[in-house]
């Protein structure tokens, strides 16, 4: 089966979700590229957009149409060539509309899994529930005579377990996008020994055609991305717990969040990131990974307490941030949750005290948005850490121990065989988490 054959009938499970919709978009654009090749003009291509929620499908189609339109507007030069044979399409607007119609014509929204029975490739982006994934894969596999390949977007569930559970004989691999898939450059590809070699080659070609940066990860729960993020989050929660012995919990959370953003020069603080992903999702990922980590306990009582009090985070359908550990106004944190009292405490009421505890930020520390644009990011970041080493402030000390732990987590991912190299760990954090420098760097020591 050729690359194009494999893409003639594709299904995306969980396509109305945050990740699924992005994967559907990327898949549709790639299938359209195949469809528009002159040699494929007589071939028929289908993408099934499958989701349990019928109510979500119209919104999904609207979203996809808007995104395809944007993509088309950016590549009109190419499209004019592809549609040169269509004499009736003259203006850019006509060609763009024709392309959008052609792409949308590929996509069949459905709530029924049966449509995947004729697919040769199945992307899966349902919730992080191993049993559910196994059930869906089994059902499709048992009813599909085409020996389909399953590309799961799981960020934490081991692939070998899915393979065995659904009896797929190696026809599943991890193809893990970062949120939002259409924007984030990173795809973690997690293969298992049983994967056919042509399946791995196809995965790499597909990622390349989608203009993604591929980082191979070994099949160990959490892989590189969550392998780092979950441990980073647990360290942050642990530091907050220690600080809370001498200050209220909300101040401790504020301080750790601030250090992880301003001192570490990251795009957002660790608790804002947990809110972005979802407190419930983070908790769930930890619970999926934990059974596979006999030497560690990937679990946080503090997150449990918050979750029990209804703190979930995540995003509204328009992409705006829901309240979580932090409360947001216009996307900016304005208050911190205190799980003892069950209330949000306005940051303005304690920021002065907490900032005084941290001490002044050294001048060499740059805002993330400036650092990330600089050509010599590593040497600029190194200057900030040099200042932390000579500064006696609490903020600098916390920043050093935080960055050193982040480095240690990264090195452990290499030592435990999750990542092939420290460079891969850094690539994941740089491209999947938008960090300005990788965690595995000597300058944080």
């Amino acid at each position, binding site marked *: 089966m050729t690359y194009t054959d494999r893409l003639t009938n594709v299904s995306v499970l969980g396509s109305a979700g945050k990740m699924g919709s992005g994967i559907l978009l990327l898949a549709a654009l790639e299938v359209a590229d195949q469809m528009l090749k002159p040699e494929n003009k007589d071939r028929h291509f289908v993408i099934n957009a499958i989701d349990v929620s019928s109510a979500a499908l119209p919104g999904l189609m609207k979203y996809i149409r808007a995104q395809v339109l944007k993509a088309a*507007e*950016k590549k*009109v*030069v*190419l*499209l*004019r060539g592809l549609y040169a044979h269509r*004499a009736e*399409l*003259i*203006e*850019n*607007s006509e060609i*763009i509309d024709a392309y959008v119609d052609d792409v949308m014509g590929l996509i069949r929204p459905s709530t029924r899994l049966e449509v995947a029975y004729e697919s040769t490739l199945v992307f899966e982006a349902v919730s992080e529930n191993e049993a559910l994934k196994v059930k869906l894969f089994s059902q499709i596999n048992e009813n599909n005579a085409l020996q389909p390949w399953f590309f799961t977007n799981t960020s934490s569930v081991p692939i070998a377990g899915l393979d065995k559970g659904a009896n797929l004989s190696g026809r599943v691999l991890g193809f893990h996008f970062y949120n939002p898939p259409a924007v984030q450059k990173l795809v973690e590809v997690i293969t298992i020994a049983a994967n056919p070699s042509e399946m791995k080659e196809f995965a790499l070609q597909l990622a390349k055609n989608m203009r993604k940066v591929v980082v191979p990860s070994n099949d160990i729960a959490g892989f590189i991305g969550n392998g780092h993020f979950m441990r980073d989050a647990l360290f942050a929660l642990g530091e907050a717990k220690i600080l809370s012995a001498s200050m209220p919990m909300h101040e401790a959370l504020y301080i750790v969040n601030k250090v992880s953003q301003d001192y570490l020069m990251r795009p957002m603080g660790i608790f804002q990131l947990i809110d972005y992903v979802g407190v419930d999702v983070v908790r769930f990922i930890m619970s999926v990974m934990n059974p596979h980590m006999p030497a560690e306990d990937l679990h946080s009582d503090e997150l449990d307490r918050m979750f029990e009090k209804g703190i979930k985070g995540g995003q509204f359908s328009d992409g705006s941030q829901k309240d979580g550990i932090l409360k947001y106004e216009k996307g900016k944190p304005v208050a911190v949750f205190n799980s003892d009292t069950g209330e949000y405490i306005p940051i303005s009421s304690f920021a002065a005290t907490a900032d005084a505890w941290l001490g002044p930020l050294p001048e060499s520390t740059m805002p993330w948005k400036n650092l990330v644009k600089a050509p010599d990011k590593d040497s600029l970041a190194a200057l900030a850490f040099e200042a932390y080493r000579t500064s006696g402030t609490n903020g600098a000390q916390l920043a050093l121990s935080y960055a050193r732990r982040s480095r240690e987590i990264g090195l452990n991912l290499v030592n435990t065989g999750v990542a092939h190299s420290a460079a891969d760990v850094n690539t994941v954090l740089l491209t999947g988490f938008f960090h300005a420098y990788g965690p595995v760097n000597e300058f944080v020591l």
Partner: protein
Amino acid sequence: MIAGYNTISMGTGRKEFNPKKERPGLEHYLKEAGQATLSHIGGGARVDEGVVGNFMASRFNKQAHLGAFMAMVDPALQYKPSIRVEGACASGGLALVTGIKSVLSGSAEVVLAIGVEVQNTVKAIYGADILAGAGWFQRRKEGQAYFFPGQFSDRAGAYYQKIGREKARLAMARWYRNAIENARLCPTAQEFENKTANLESQGLTEPNPKSFTAHLNVFDCSKVSDGASSIAIVSEEGLRRCGVPVSEAVEVIAVGHAVDDITTLPADPTRLDTIAAAVKKALETAGITPGQLATIETHDCFSIAGILGMEAIGLCGEGEGADFVLAGHTARDGKIPVNTTGGLIGWGHPTGATGVHQAVTIWEQLTGKAGAAQITIPAERPYGLTVNMGGDDKTVVAIVYRKTT
């Protein structure tokens, strides 16, 4: 001509410009420019006729029938004659020609000419479709996505063959630098706030045929602009009626107006023959040579058009435009300062307004009203020239102006 006025050329580059927010429309720009000119000549009661130059409001703004907006500009213009004229990007020049003819015919002593275009209503990729209307529609299909940049990219490619790519690119980058440096002296210019340090190296950015064109980059191109310009065209009687001193007027001494068959391709893409014909006629009528001009506003919709324009005007020989520009002759301190407020690349290109904007700039320079952009007008060379081009060298209006004494 008297009482010229330019609105800001609005679009990318201006800090007030936010494509996501609602912006002023045609009505705003027509009123701002028209009323400013009227306020200097005693109001609409002094005006006999109005003329509006506009290219494509029918598509950019879904609005035709712009002549009737004159009575909105000033109620005193109600029931007076007013028309809209169109000749693609030479629409503004045609508005001037129309007004000049009315005055020469004796049917009017005072004509209010306004050029206007509001283009930022659509994304550039759709704007390219609209602007392609300046070419022959039967060739649109074979044209490039960015149609006019594509046409002039082909001209640039031919020019590279003729004189060598490196020199041509250097001259185009110099043209860009001159344009931006001049725009920085004019508060209404779209690039007034441009802070780029090394303009020539930016201008030398390698063109990308996959996303734009083979031989031009975006810095070689004029701006997408919203704006209006206006000026009053008056007879000597009209001047007295308006109470404006002669020292604040420029004298129009010659007009060259020429078209070429829109359905044909240029015989030689490295020549702008219609510009050459219109300018020749204007200069002959005026009885002067290119060397007697103090300043020129030329239609640099693309840097290559500016350079080929120098050859077509006769400032240098064929194939010598790049050398002429690289020698600094067109810079503001050069032999013949060209586009002293930035031209279409630096000041902006609200298409239907551009011809009028050029006249306003020459009027400012010859009457000493150009502010920080003011150049010295030598007493022995009291002449200015505007060259306004529609389409790919298909309609051209060239006008020669003289400083009043």
